């Protein structure tokens, strides 16, 4: 046995042990945990021995196998863009009047996001055209026809708006899902106007529809920051220690904080003064931006003086000192309300509430009479400038999302009931075992010892596929099981090619050693080419497929790569041991 052989053997042993080791979390999650606890990583970690890999490397079941809801929402940016175009039209007409450029009638073409301005006095049109195009630079000129000017929203604007609308919708959806406490929810953008949501293990279709069924509610509420309510409550009625509720006070403003939303709400329930309401603010985790690290309470006025309906715009920018801010403006009615509100409450905080969650609570510094407000993010030593700008953008998004929501409709819903999953798992594993058993038995009978060696490689390949699925945090779906079986069928093809080649070389009268060596060498490129072509198809399927089909592609791709290792290297090392090491004169094939 030469050095290279020992090296290969060492690699094979390491890979085998490694893949078995990585299957430990999957073993515990499937056979040691009750089914409903399968997604409980904390419990899994506790149950496992210390030497096991982290619990997150457990084999994830797809929605089709464990039940749950998969949905794709389409954000109807067209309707929102139409509204925006119309609003801009109104602004243009007012602008022309305010600047005393003349008078125009504005007609909107909602299909093409176009506005046609018709000047009452044709002589003023040239000046109007110049001024309007310079001021409203989100529009571009389409054509000019005497006293008619047609302008349209720029493509860059449409794209920006589309992205923004999808981001707004995602923000609202994320917050709502967070409220329900669904573990492992996955929300991502798909294409340029769709959002894909996976809620594994979740069955409540009615509530899932709330995601889209209701528009986000944006409200402005006054915060009662002088009330000692939270302090008194905390001192007179101390919460149990395990609840994790703590009292914090900044600038004499008492708030309660806890990691768990429900615990906090249960604690204050029934104790709130009659004309007040307790709302929560999510404190985002610094590590994972999309998740809430903890929640803080706010005592707010029960009355809602102003809602998002009256808000016309919100834009993030930086002021002359480079500080991040959000500029907001209200329509005529909103401006009046806002003026009264700010006049009455100078020095107090106003909470910006989206879907009953406080997003932020800026302080009112002065009366704002014209309906144009400015929210400064304020310097915070723990945050970088970029983070503050990011915060301003997020706030603008919240405000816009509540003011001008783009309607969201369901593109796709796939819901799998919890009872269907176990049945599919049972049938799927049975199908896989039967298929594999047939292949294993056939190989052993047909190629005798060489067949058994191929079987060992096949079983290692199976273990490798499962452990790599676990390592990559991929999900195992029903088509994935089919892909697993098929891949093992393809993997064993390589050994068929090798063994046939060895037989052929033996038939040519070669010695056992020469036959094995040449058999492997000559079959290698054929096997390689065959694997690469199937890999190409698998990779394309992986890139374009979604949901369960993607699970199939994952199993196929991992399995083919693993097969190059197991069916060529592993079997060769074992065969070489018998032929060279034991100096056998014959090879059992």
């Amino acid at each position: 046995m030469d050095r290279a052989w020992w090296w290969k053997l060492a690699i094979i042993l390491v890979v085998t042990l490694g893949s078995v080791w990585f299957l430990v979390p999957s073993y515990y999650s499937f056979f040691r945990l009750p089914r409903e606890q399968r997604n409980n990583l904390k419990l899994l970690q506790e149950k496992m021995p210390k030497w096991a890999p982290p619990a997150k490397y457990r084999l994830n079941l797809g929605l089709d196998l464990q039940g749950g809801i998969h949905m794709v929402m389409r954000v109807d940016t067209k309707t929102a863009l139409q509204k925006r175009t119309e609003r801009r039209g109104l602004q243009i007409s007012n602008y022309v009047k305010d600047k005393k450029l003349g008078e125009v009638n504005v007609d909107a073409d909602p299909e093409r996001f176009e506005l046609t301005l018709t000047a009452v006095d044709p002589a003023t049109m040239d000046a109007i055209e110049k001024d309007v195009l310079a001021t409203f630079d989100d529009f571009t000129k389409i054509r000019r026809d005497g006293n008619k000017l047609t302008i349209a929203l720029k493509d860059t604007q449409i794209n920006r708006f589309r992205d923004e609308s999808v981001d707004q919708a995602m923000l609202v959806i994320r917050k709502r899902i967070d409220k329900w406490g669904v573990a492992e929810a996955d929300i991502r953008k798909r294409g340029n106007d769709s959002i894909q949501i996976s809620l594994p293990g979740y069955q409540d279709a009615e509530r899932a529809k709330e995601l889209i069924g209701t528009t986000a509610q944006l409200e402005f509420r006054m915060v009662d920051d002088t009330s000692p309510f939270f302090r008194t409550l905390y001192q007179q009625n101390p919460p149990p220690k395990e609840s994790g509720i703590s009292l914090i006070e900044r600038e004499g403003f008492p708030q309660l904080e806890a990691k768990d939303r429900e615990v906090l709400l249960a604690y204050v329930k029934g104790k709130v003064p009659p004309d007040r309401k307790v709302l929560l603010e999510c404190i985002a985790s610094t590590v994972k931006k999309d998740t809430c690290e903890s929640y803080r309470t706010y005592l707010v006025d029960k009355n809602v003086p102003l809602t998002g309906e009256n808000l016309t715009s919100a834009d993030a920018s930086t002021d002359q000192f480079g500080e991040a801010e959000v500029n907001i403006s209200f329509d005529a009615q909103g401006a009046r309300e806002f003026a009264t509100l700010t006049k009455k409450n100078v020095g107090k905080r106003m909470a910006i509430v989206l879907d009953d969650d406080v997003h932020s609570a800026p302080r009112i510094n002065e009366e704002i009479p014209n309906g144009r407000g400015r929210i400064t993010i304020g310097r915070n030593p723990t945050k970088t400038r970029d983070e503050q700008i990011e915060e301003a953008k997020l706030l603008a998004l919240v405000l816009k999302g509540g003011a001008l929501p783009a309607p969201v409709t369901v593109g796709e819903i796939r819901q799998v009931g919890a009872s269907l999953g176990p049945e599919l798992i049972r049938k799927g594993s049975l199908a896989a075992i039967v298929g594999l058993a047939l292949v294993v038995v056939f190989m052993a009978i047909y190629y005798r010892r060489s067949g058994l060696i191929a079987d060992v490689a096949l079983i290692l390949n199976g273990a490798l596929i499962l452990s790599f699925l676990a390592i990559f945090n991929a999900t195992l779906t029903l088509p994935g099981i089919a892909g697993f079986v098929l891949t093992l069928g393809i993997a064993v093809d390589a050994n068929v090619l090798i063994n046939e080649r060895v037989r052929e070389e033996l038939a040519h009268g070669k010695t056992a050693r020469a036959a094995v060596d040449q058999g492997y060498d000559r079959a290698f490129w054929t096997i390689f080419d065959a694997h690469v072509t199937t890999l190409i198809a698998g990779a394309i399927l992986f890139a374009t497929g979604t949901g369960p089909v993607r699970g199939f592609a994952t199993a196929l791709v991992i399995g083919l790569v693993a097969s190059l290792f197991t069916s060529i290297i592993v079997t060769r090392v074992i065969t070489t041991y018998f032929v060279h090491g034991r100096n056998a004169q014959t090879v059992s094939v």
Partner: protein
Amino acid sequence: MRIIKKKTNIDFIGKRRPALFISSVLNLAILVGITIFGFNFGVDFAGGTVVELKFDHRVTAEDIRKRAQSAGLHDVSVQGIGSASENSFLLRLGGVTQLTKENSAQAEAAIRALGPIKFFNADLDNGLINFRSEKKLDPEPVKQAVEGTGTGIKEVRSLGEAQGGGNDYQVVVSGMADRVFTAMKQGLDKPDFIVQRVDYVGPQVGKQLRNKGIMSLVYAMVMILIYVAFRFDFKFGPGALVAMVHDVIMVSGYFLVTRREFNLTSIAVLLTVIGYSINDTIVVYDRIREEMVRYKGKPLPEIINIAVNDTLSRTILTSGVTALSLVGLLIFGVGEIWDFAMAMLVGIIVGTYSSVYIASPLTIWLDERAAAKEREAKTGMKPKVA
């Protein structure tokens, strides 16, 4: 043990003309069939709603159909799945929302009754109604008015004041699945079934998925072809391509003839067939290349015959082993997975056939043409037989 004991000497090349002829006729027939009858598209591609219900007592598909019809659901197809004792059924509906032409006309009348409106626009695909009212309306009465006409409503949204007067509203109509549940629950205290699965795909999404699926097939073929051309001689390319196209058409033919549902999983099968069927072709090509070096000067048809005969047992074995692994899926698989296994089996069989009878003979044809051209260039004369 051996399946083919002696060296075979079958003249595959001699039979290439009838084989090519039969294959071409079959392929053409399938293509014509697809244009005339089309596939039985699943919800993935056609859009629509599929609901899987499991009843807690014995029912037949006919019972369910009657129940649906008595609640006004006429275009529903009911299909049992699994064994009869499981009482599981798939209910398939074409539409995705409850909004139809008639419904929207009724809804328009109901909304007009509330006050004058400036325009009314029903988006049947997405189940949305947009309208502009001259006066400000409360969403609740609008909802009640429309629901009064029998259309389920999810929400009425106020979109705010419109430029030039009027208020915009949007009515979001409930999905078809809701209607199915209401229909099936009708007259019962509590439902006698549980919902196993709901699949709902909007028409636009369906179209997107379909286009994406077709494109992925084209990409796969082009990429594999590039790889084959790069690894082998260029003249092997066309043979491989025609073999791939042949296999895809034949497997499509399976879906066409059996009327099994054509969905995302079917695309996965077609892609895998493309990747897999080329495997056998590569085994044969590899051998042809090898023999070409060994028997220099021998005519290509003879070389190919030797190569195909030499590799015959492994061609049959590799396909057989892969087919063997599918047996379990064919026994225990239900629904999509059974279809997957069955179509894959068809793919393996036609893939094996095509690498012997299509991919290899085409190489000869190309070689002959090249030789003819060469001769033509040399002698300046047209050859009598190509």
